[in-house]
């Protein structure tokens, strides 16, 4: 018990004195997960929209694959990204393994199906007649797609949040492809794992609290969005 109280006290101290190492780790986490989410938005929203609006043979399979992708364990993603980036792997010549870029790639792979799945669901949930109404207003196909995405912007924002929330809190892939190198690829989760392993509970708790704050904010925004409704 004393351990925890002491840990929390030290954690608050670290947070309020803006400890440079903790700050550095937090900043890297935000940068890496933010970039990965951003990339996943482009791919995920496009993929989700295309699948939502088109009918083609094998569509059900694609939808199932996306939904499965939403729940793939980060460690599995980490494993495959590691294999791809390995010196003798298909992308080995870029020497990306154990760099922040490697973490971004892995996290983008984790977030893309999440974003695609939520986009697919939210575009599909729009009334079918809305698409016809937009076309009847004289829209081109491109304008129609853009307007539908705009209509689904609230649930799509949820997709952003869910994607970001998913990657900032994952540890398996980051540690595998990033290697938890101090000052280079050490992010909030990997640092927490390491500090806990070393028995430095104060720093671990400080990092944990920061992570908690992030997830709380994300969920608060998500809940707020989900409580809104479409107009008639």
């Amino acid at each position, binding site marked *: 018990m004393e351990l925890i109280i002491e840990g929390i006290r030290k954690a608050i101290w670290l947070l309020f004195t803006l400890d440079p190492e903790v700050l550095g780790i937090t900043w890297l986490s935000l940068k890496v997960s933010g970039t990965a989410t951003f990339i996943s938005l482009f791919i995920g929203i496009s993929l989700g929209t295309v699948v939502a609006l088109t009918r083609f043979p094998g569509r059900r399979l694609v939808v199932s694959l996306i939904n499965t992708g939403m729940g793939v364990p980060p460690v599995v993603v980490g494993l495959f990204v590691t294999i791809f980036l390995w010196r003798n792997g298909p992308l080995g010549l870029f020497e990306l393994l154990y760099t922040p870029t490697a973490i971004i790639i892995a996290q983008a792979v984790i977030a893309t199906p999440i974003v695609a799945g939520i986009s697919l669901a939210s575009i599909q949930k729009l009334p079918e*007649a*809305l698409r*016809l109404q937009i076309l*009847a*207003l*004289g829209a081109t196909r491109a304008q129609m797609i853009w*307007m539908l995405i705009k209509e689904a912007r609230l649930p799509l924002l949820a997709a952003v949040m869910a994607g970001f929330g998913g990657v900032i809190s994952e540890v398996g892939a980051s540690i595998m492809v990033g290697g938890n190198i101090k000052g280079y690829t050490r992010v909030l989760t990997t640092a927490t794992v390491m500090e806990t392993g070393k028995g430095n509970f104060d720093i671990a708790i400080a990092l944990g609290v920061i992570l908690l704050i992030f997830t709380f904010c994300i969920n608060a925004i998500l809940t707020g969005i989900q409580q809104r409704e479409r*107009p008639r």
Partner: protein
Amino acid sequence: MSVPILEVRGLKVSRGGVPVLDISELTVQAGEFLSLIGPNGTGKSTLLLGLAGLVKRNAGEIRFHGRAITNGSDMLEYRRHLAMVFQEPLLFVATVYDNVASGLKIRGMRRSHIRPLVEEHLELFGVAHLSSRSARKISGGEAQRTSLARAFATNPELVLLDEPFVSLDPPTREAIIDDLGRVMQTRRTTVVMATHDRMDALRMSNRIAFMEGGGIVQVGPPSEVMHQPVNQTVAAFVGIETMLEGEVRDSSAGVLVVDINGRSIAAAGSFTPGERVMCLVRPEHVMIFPAGSSTESSARNRFTGTVRSVQSFGLIHRLEIDCGFLLIAHVTSLAMEDLHLKQGMTVNAAFKATSVHVIRSSHS
């Protein structure tokens, strides 16, 4: 006669291999208000979508001002001359103003040109005070007004309305119909409206097209469809309740004598003796007199019968009179009181020969 604004020929649409629409011919004149009526699921909405080029045609041709519309770039051009309003307002998650502006924005119009047009239409449909309100926070009637304003803001030549009033309460519906009527009168906009409400169709349209099983079975002025339905489905839909099957006994000078279960009905029409026919009588055209009174009526058809049942619809009462065949009459409350009409009473019923519309029996 000038070139019609819209001509449809051989339009066929199917869904999942099942044919749902088959329109051999339909012409709409500029400035006309055409209503598509008929029971649910008869293809009214599909026809509207077909007219807007929003459904895949299996066959057929649509001509706009005499020019055939193909699926390429002229489809977009064509769609920009029309507007469509659905049963649901289908507003965007935006302000009322932005909703009304959307069609103009799509056309790439400059902001400075959009503003006066949007303001004019917000005013016309009585939603100017809601301009900056979110479309999420307005009532159903206000939402449908916004939807109409959005449709008319682009100044369309042709407006397609798909049951736009069906989910509104009666006062709201009346007010919106009034506003719509005023706008259309000044604009001379051509309208095609799908509805299953015959009263809406009767008061708003110049012509009515009755749809059944994906096709149009009758087109004509409202009074014609009301009084001279071509078949039993149309007759039932326009409120004809008495439909009597019989055989033509005599036909001379446009007057028929039809035998119904041994009773003779005089009717106007031209059929040959021996033909199986159906006599249709509107319930409003049946007059009721006290039994035994010397009926001061020129009506050729007079029968004595028993009131089998009385149903009240407020100011109108529906009587079922058994006079060898079942005759349905609508009587006002005032007449009910005057005649002391009650179930089981014997009355005289009369209707003119010209009030009987005769069609060929579907069973012959």
